[in-house]
């Protein structure tokens, strides 16, 4: 299952960035251009001059960046197989080679013809690109380290949030309440509980089929319905989404738990939760909408903990390729999550 990571996830085990990820590319472009701007400002004596200098720097920088990134993306599968140490070395060498050769073969485009010491220019070009490349790699390594700690923290939080003591004890109490009169239903409830807790306590980092996550969420909702009776109703709108799509586990269920805890439970008459799942090109769009009597006062911390956790996991897994939106009005609350998925077929092809 380790090949499940082939979804465009952002962190590699050893800290080299994924050059196919849009977030990584954007970060590289922005950082390099900021450095270039700094350089342009240092060398200039007027604002007009800054623009000129930027142009000058970019005639070299842009081709170097683009071709390096293209090549890195191409050799990514190979980079993933070697150790971090060699990977870094390979990336640096590739970048230096690209920049020196572009500089060299670009000829008079980059060099005023009167310059004689072309050896110095070449070395300077190579040195600069090596330093910038090193700084970037260091940055990505730090970032992935920081985020992987966030991941384990997040998992702990998910665990804690999911086995919300309130939910555990109330459900046991409810099962005890029906065990004499409806033993069959009590059995089913205990089975659902076992499944739910097994999932919560497993430390599988892999992707799971969407169908499994939906199934788990329905089991969870059945338990809540046992307690709340017809106060809780859920409408599923699933369109054009095959069950075999792979998604990160425990995305849907915690969002539903929030909707129940903060949206339905405080209402005497209860209410309904709307779950919408559909496809948007190669992304999955998940929308959960629930009434929210307490939305007016936003003092509900528990809510934010669970949501922050999911947001962190999405950031970590997909960077800018996932989006996350919360919208709340006077009496409703809506969470919308969009993220890339992989299909089974695609995964098989890649592995």
């Amino acid at each position: 299952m380790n090949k499940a990571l082939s979804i465009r996830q952002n962190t590699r085990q050893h800290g080299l960035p994924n050059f196919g990820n849009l977030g990584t590319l954007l970060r590289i472009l922005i950082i390099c251009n900021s450095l270039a701007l700094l350089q342009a400002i240092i060398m200039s004596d007027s604002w007009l001059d800054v623009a000129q200098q930027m142009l000058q720097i970019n005639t070299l920088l842009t081709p170097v960046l683009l071709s390096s990134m293209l090549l890195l993306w191409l050799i990514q599968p190979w980079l993933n197989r070697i150790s971090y140490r060699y990977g870094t070395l390979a990336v640096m060498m590739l970048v230096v080679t690209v920049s020196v050769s572009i500089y060299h073969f670009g000829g008079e485009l980059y060099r005023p013809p009167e310059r004689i010491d072309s050896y110095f220019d070449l070395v300077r070009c190579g040195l600069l690109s090596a330093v910038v490349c090193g700084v970037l790699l260091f940055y990505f390594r730090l970032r992935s380290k920081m985020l992987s700690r966030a991941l384990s923290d997040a998992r702990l939080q998910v665990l804690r949030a999911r086995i919300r003591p309130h939910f555990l004890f109330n459900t046991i109490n409810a099962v005890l309440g029906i065990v004499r009169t409806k033993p069959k239903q009590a059995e089913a409830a205990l089975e659902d509980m076992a499944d739910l807790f097994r999932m919560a306590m497993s430390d599988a980092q892999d992707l799971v089929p969407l169908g499994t996550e939906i199934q788990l969420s329905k089991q969870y909702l059945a338990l809540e319905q046992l307690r709340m009776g017809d106060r809780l109703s859920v409408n599923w709108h699933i369109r054009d989404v095959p069950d075999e799509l792979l998604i990160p586990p425990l995305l849907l269920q915690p969002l539903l738990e929030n909707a129940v805890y903060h949206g339905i439970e405080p209402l005497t008459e209860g209410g309904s939760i709307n779950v919408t799942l559909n496809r948007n090109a190669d992304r999955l769009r998940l929308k959960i909408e629930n009434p929210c009597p307490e939305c007016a006062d936003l003092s509900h911390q528990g809510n934010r903990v669970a949501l922050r956790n999911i947001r962190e996991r999405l950031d970590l897994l997909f960077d800018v390729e996932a989006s996350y939106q919360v919208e709340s009005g006077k009496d409703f609350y809506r969470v919308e999550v969009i993220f890339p998925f992989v299909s089974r077929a695609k995964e098989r092809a890649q592995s």
Partner: protein
Amino acid sequence: MNDVELALRVFIVDDEPPARTRLRDLLNDCGAQLALEIVGEAGNGREALEKLTSIAADVVLLDIRMPQMDGIELAQHLNKLPKPPVVIFTTAYDAYAIKAFDLRVIDYLLKPIRLGRLFEALNRARLAVPVQTEVLRELLPEPRRNLSIHERGKIHLIPIEQVLYLRAELKYVTVRTAEREYLIEESLNALEKEFLTRFVRIHRNCLIAKEAIAGFEKGGDEGESGWMVRLKGLEDLLAISRRQQHIVKEFSRA
């Protein structure tokens, strides 16, 4: 004592049907050794209060976390009954409340509820007296959602957002809603403290709802400062005392 012979009348309040079933089962089990009678049950605070004005109960088993009105607030309103019942709180998990209960030796049962614990609690309840309203108020971190008024043997709940102003009379406080006035036996100072965010004092004897302010007018004749406040949905103006004049500025800007 004579009433030991009498059956203990128990009332159940919980918003979850299976939780009520569980309590009924356990109470029936207790019945073998303890004379008791289940006199009724309710799924929320309002329903409980309505039923308990006509049904007499000695003990109320009361869930803490319920929609709209939680158990601790309901217990305060129940204390207004002519013969307030003894309350035994039930809760699945509520770290804050449990700590507070232990501190004040208030009885509670943890869900899932055990037969033995329920039996003990019922036995203690026979001799116990209801927890005082003041103590319950300390337990509640948030202000009540309703004021309760005892009137001709019934208890009215008035949602706090319907209250336009509160005015201290000799012994009572007048509660004014758009429809009518009620009298409650509470102190204006305590009310001011509890509902600090909702009401503002305009006079030594009067708090008005900030949301209800419609405008300010200069009315010379009786006003100490000359300023009067107009409230939404009310004909009469209320005088603002000289000391509270600053609120005219504060609220007309907003």
